[in-house]
């Protein structure tokens, strides 16, 4: 197996321009999805954490359950929506990176919202009295809380990023794995595996792992530096 890995890595680096394109597209798609899901998911999680409303427990259960949405099912649903035969067909988004971003956003939104909700609910127990005493209620209190525990929320965002960069089912279906247009690392690995080119698939796999590791390391360093500064 070691021989396969070394062969794979050397062939991966021979790919040059094509490899770069695939890597950059993977990053673009997953990071965009994480950004969107965070912008939507953090306020959602904050609201559910802080506000008491009828059916709140049910919402929490559903959010937690949606974390386990199978990517291929999400891909299928988004495909049906974006297909010309579907409701959003006229957008012409199918088989474009935009469709992939959409599918991945849908996939990781529950993860970010549910994990944020848990972290914020724990923090709210600590902050609630003081914030309410000062006159911060509802959305104002929620957003203040989000900003204050932003470093713990980094882990939540990384969880979303991990899920997005690792999945292949959704992006394969809505992207079509089109050479040069919608081929990302995971779909490329799937393709090479199905072609029987296992060393290349392995090589790509290692590149993917290395990238995700690098992103996580960077996030940790930023988190540490900021924590030293703000306490």
């Amino acid at each position: 197996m070691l021989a396969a890995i070394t062969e794979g890595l050397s062939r991966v680096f021979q790919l040059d321009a094509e490899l770069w394109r695939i890597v950059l597209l993977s990053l673009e798609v997953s990071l965009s999805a994480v950004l969107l899901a965070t912008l939507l998911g953090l306020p959602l999680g904050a609201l559910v954490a802080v506000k008491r409303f009828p059916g709140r427990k049910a919402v929490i259960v559903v959010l937690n359950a949606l974390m386990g949405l199978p990517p291929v099912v999400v891909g299928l649903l988004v495909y049906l929506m974006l297909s010309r035969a579907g409701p959003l067909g006229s957008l012409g988004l199918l088989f474009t990176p935009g469709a992939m971003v959409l599918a991945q956003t849908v996939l990781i939104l529950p993860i970010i919202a549910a994990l944020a909700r848990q972290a914020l609910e724990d923090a709210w127990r600590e902050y609630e009295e003081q914030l309410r005493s000062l006159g911060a209620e509802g959305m104002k209190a929620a957003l203040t809380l989000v900003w204050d525990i932003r470093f713990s929320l980094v882990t939540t965002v990384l969880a979303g990023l991990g899920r997005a960069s690792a999945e292949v089912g959704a992006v394969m279906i809505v992207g079509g794995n089109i050479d040069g247009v919608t081929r990302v690392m995971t779909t490329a690995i799937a393709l090479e595996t199905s072609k029987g080119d296992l060393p290349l698939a392995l090589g790509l796999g290692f590149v993917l792992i290395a990238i995700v590791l690098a992103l996580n390391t960077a996030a940790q360093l930023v988190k540490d530096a900021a924590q030293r500064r703000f306490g």
Partner: protein
Amino acid sequence: MRAAPILPLQLKEVVFSAGEQRIIDRVTLDIAAGPSTIILGANGAGKSVLMRLMHGLLEPTSGSLAWSERDLQRVRRRQAMVFQRPIMLRRSALANVLFALELAGVAPDKREAEAFAALDEVGLRPLAQRPARVLSGGEQQRLALARAWALHPEVLFLDEPTASLDPGATREIETVIKAFDAAGTKIVMATHNLGQARRLGDEVVYLQAGRVVERSPADRFFTKPATAEAAAFIKGEVPWVGF
């Protein structure tokens, strides 16, 4: 424009239950402007809950709390509360005071001046840019007082503000509280520390098992308590007292 005061606060037959247990048991009380009021009692007497009811963080199970002012938003803005453990945001000391000013609706160009003045009052100006969470317990509590001071509240509620502090820090906090009092703020403070109650209080409300057992001016309370329960409490805390 001199605004109308929110005091007096009138509690009528206030009850607070958590499940089966009655924590506050039919309290009728008038909080008027002027003398600093100490809510005295042993642990578990219900002091903290009473404070939170008065401040508006809890709703009574039955009974009523009425301020002189109808507008509840105004009522909220004219009072502040300091808790036993200060909760600070992960920002600088100055930023924490600014946050309170922002919430109180103070104009943006006035906030910084007010914040620095408040920090000066509690002697924290040199630490203004320090992250609030790395300050010592005593410094954070002083910061909490600065935060309250910046709002120039009519009423300042304090729930055992020095229970977690050493004697030195305690003295510093008490100095600031006296300054509030001198500036005309109504002080309502819960404590079980008799010495502190004597040092800071003008009148004492003695709470036991959720009921107001005695209410007297401070010097009379400590020398000649009117009720046996109060006497027992004082004797329990300071067994060498002779009455």
